[in-house]
């Protein structure tokens, strides 16, 4: 595994796109806001921009250090190491739970009799190979995937638009109330786990100084895509079904029937989800392995790729007993867990670094 690959700003922005696309097909986090979910998703974009800003400011203070290294510079050895261990847990757990989500999706919808360990095992094997090849390879695969994903999405929206009824979005803003929308925005923004990965990847980015505008661009594209798709889900399914179904994207895809022969496009959702999840899991997996190497100050991290894969498979199987538990966790426990690592710790690190004027020594 190469630990010093370089990625460009555009590739970084494209990573945001792919990784958020997977979310669009899985559970929409803001369903509590009912027909105002799309407003909540737009609100979530603002929170995500704030999260990205914190990570970028931290990266500018410590240009060659990652989120596994600067906590020790800011808080000292002891607390810093604690935080690093926390982030290691975060990356491992995110990898595992995303893997499990994909496995549950495949076994629920497409291959119910296939043992989930087979699905997860093969998936993690592919991811392990990608991680072994390093971040440069992952982003290059992503360069191939993004146009395919965008095209699939374009086709999807074109086909589904005839079933949409915009009046289903009304009444806007009154039924659930502003408080619920804000709450749902916070829930939805907890899905932006990539921001922690950027804490690891920004030292690898060429011209990290200009990273923020590119992140903004990526977030804008993604925000647009998520908002459009949530609007599509509500207008096609109606708000009651939107809240009821487990996989909104799949449910909408199943409604597509153009001219009697262009129908049954469910495999398209599987394609999008598997592809997007692959990049997503590979990135978090890579961050975890890199993190261990940085904590132990070793460059021989290649040895860790396979054992980590085994750990991911095991953790994904034992963390959740069933799909309802997973779903429940994604909608409830997930928020607190993620925002500790995505918002709270980065924000306190930045504040401390500013107050005590901690900077990387040149």
């Amino acid at each position, binding site marked *: 595994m190469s630990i010093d690959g370089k990625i460009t700003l555009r590739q970084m922005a494209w990573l945001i796109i792919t990784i958020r696309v997977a979310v669009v097909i899985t559970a929409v986090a803001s369903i509590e806001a009912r027909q105002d979910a799309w407003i909540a998703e737009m609100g979530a974009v603002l929170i995500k921009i704030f999260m990205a800003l914190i990570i970028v400011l931290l990266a500018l203070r410590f240009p060659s250090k990652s989120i596994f290294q600067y906590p020790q510079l800011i808080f000292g050895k002891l607390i810093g190491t604690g935080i690093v261990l926390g982030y290691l847990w975060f990356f491992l757990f995110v990898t595992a739970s995303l893997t499990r989500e994909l496995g549950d999706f495949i076994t*629920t919808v497409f291959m119910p009799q296939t043992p989930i360990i*087979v699905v997860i095992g093969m998936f993690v094997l592919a991811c392990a190979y990608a991680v072994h090849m390093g971040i440069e390879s992952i982003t290059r695969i992503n360069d191939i995937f993004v146009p395919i994903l965008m095209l699939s999405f374009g086709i999807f929206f074109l086909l589904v638009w005839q079933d949409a009824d915009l009046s*289903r979005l*009304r009444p806007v803003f009154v039924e659930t109330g502003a408080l619920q929308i804000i709450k749902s925005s916070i829930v939805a923004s907890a899905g932006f786990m990539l921001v922690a990965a950027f804490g690891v990847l920004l030292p690898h980015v060429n011209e990290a100084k200009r990273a923020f505008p590119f992140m903004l661009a990526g977030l804008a594209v993604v925000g647009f895509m998520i908002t459009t798709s949530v609007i599509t889900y509500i207008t096609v*399914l*109606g708000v*009651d*079904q939107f809240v009821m*179904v487990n996989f909104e994207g799949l449910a909408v895809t199943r409604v597509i029937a153009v001219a009697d022969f262009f129908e049954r496009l469910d495999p398209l959702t599987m394609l999008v989800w598997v592809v997007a999840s692959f990049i997503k899991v590979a990135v978090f997996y890579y961050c975890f392995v890199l993190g261990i190497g940085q904590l132990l100050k070793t460059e021989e991290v290649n040895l860790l790729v396979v054992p980590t894969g085994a750990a991911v498979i095991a953790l994904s199987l034992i963390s959740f007993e069933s799909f309802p538990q997973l779903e429940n966790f994604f909608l409830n426990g997930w928020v607190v867990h993620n925002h500790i690592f995505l918002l709270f710790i980065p924000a306190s690190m930045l504040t401390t670094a500013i107050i005590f004027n901690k900077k990387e020594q040149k």
Partner: protein
Amino acid sequence: MESTAKQWIKAIAVFLLITISLVNLPGCWNRVELNDRALALGLALDKAPGVDNKFMMTAEIANPSEVIAPLTGGGGGELPPAWVVSSTGWSAWEAGRNIVMQSRRRLFVAHTQVFVIGEDIAKEGLSPLMDLIMRNRELRRTAWIIIAKEATGKEILGVQHEMGGLTSDVINNLVLDSVQASAAIQIEVADFIQELVCDKCSPVAGRIEFVDPGRPEGIIDETETRDMKENITEGELLRYSGAAVFKRDRLVGWLDRKEARGLNWIRDNIGSGILVVKAPGEPERNLGIDVMFSESNISIEFTNDKPKITIEVEVEGNLGENMSNQDIIDKESLQIVEKRMAQVVRNDIEAVLKKAQELETDIFGFAMLIYQSNYKKWQELEEDWEKTFSNLPIGIVVQADVRRIGLIGEPVRAR
């Protein structure tokens, strides 16, 4: 020496990779060959005869070789193209699975085109059955949902259509072609469930019934009751017309053809249809207007906190036939025809409104409209909506136009 060892390792690695891929890639775990599947094209759900709380599922299982054989000119026709088989169980899905005991193949329902539901079970509520359709990964939500009037779904699927072929396919085509007359409604399961789970809507579903071939189709009075079981003979015809009206998930009534067309005017689902109007000047002769275009718009206003609905329908048609002796080319008679045309549409709409208000079931989505356009007012009305709905003043404005008159101007008349 070293390079050969490396080459060996490489060769073994490639071999392993290919072997592993070969094991995994050719198919998924639950691959089932087509000839091991019982391909259900239509499903019927009924109450199991004689037992409370038990369900009966009937499937029309296609016999692929017999369906294809007539096309290719092969030696088909020895076996019927489909086989109708039923089984019972304590849940609908158990009933479906129990079919395996008779069919030796597991039911494969991904190609189901129609769901026929018996009247009895529809009266008891459909939401328990709809859960299966939403939850199951195979069942398609684009299938039609149809209620069997005065019959069980099993009887409907068991009919051998005179034109031959699969009953489910026949029903599918009946539904598809019903837009030509617009006297029936087309409802996909997805739409039905959407209206079912929404607390402000009431669903409607298609209606299918037997027709006695011994009697001309048009003479049968909609309100006439007949003992259907007595009439089932070989070659019995099915008729897809009208609609089944639900209150929440319970079947509460039927719409006849006129009322179903009224519902289609309001819901803006008119494909085509013939409007029969009296000829100007000759009241005993009729004109047939072929509807080419229609558009509806429902608006709502509040006077003294009381809602008032206005339905505006714009309809355009061509003169399809003129059975009278008088042409309608002059402006005056054309206006009379258009006025009468509007009256026909208004009559349709009034009929369905009256029926729905009697049944206190809001199949038009008026509640949804109020909810969407005026949430505050809806909160006041929500509690007592059914009462409000049954006394709701509804205005109907119809704009009718005859655009074209066909190939001849003057009517054909004997001199």
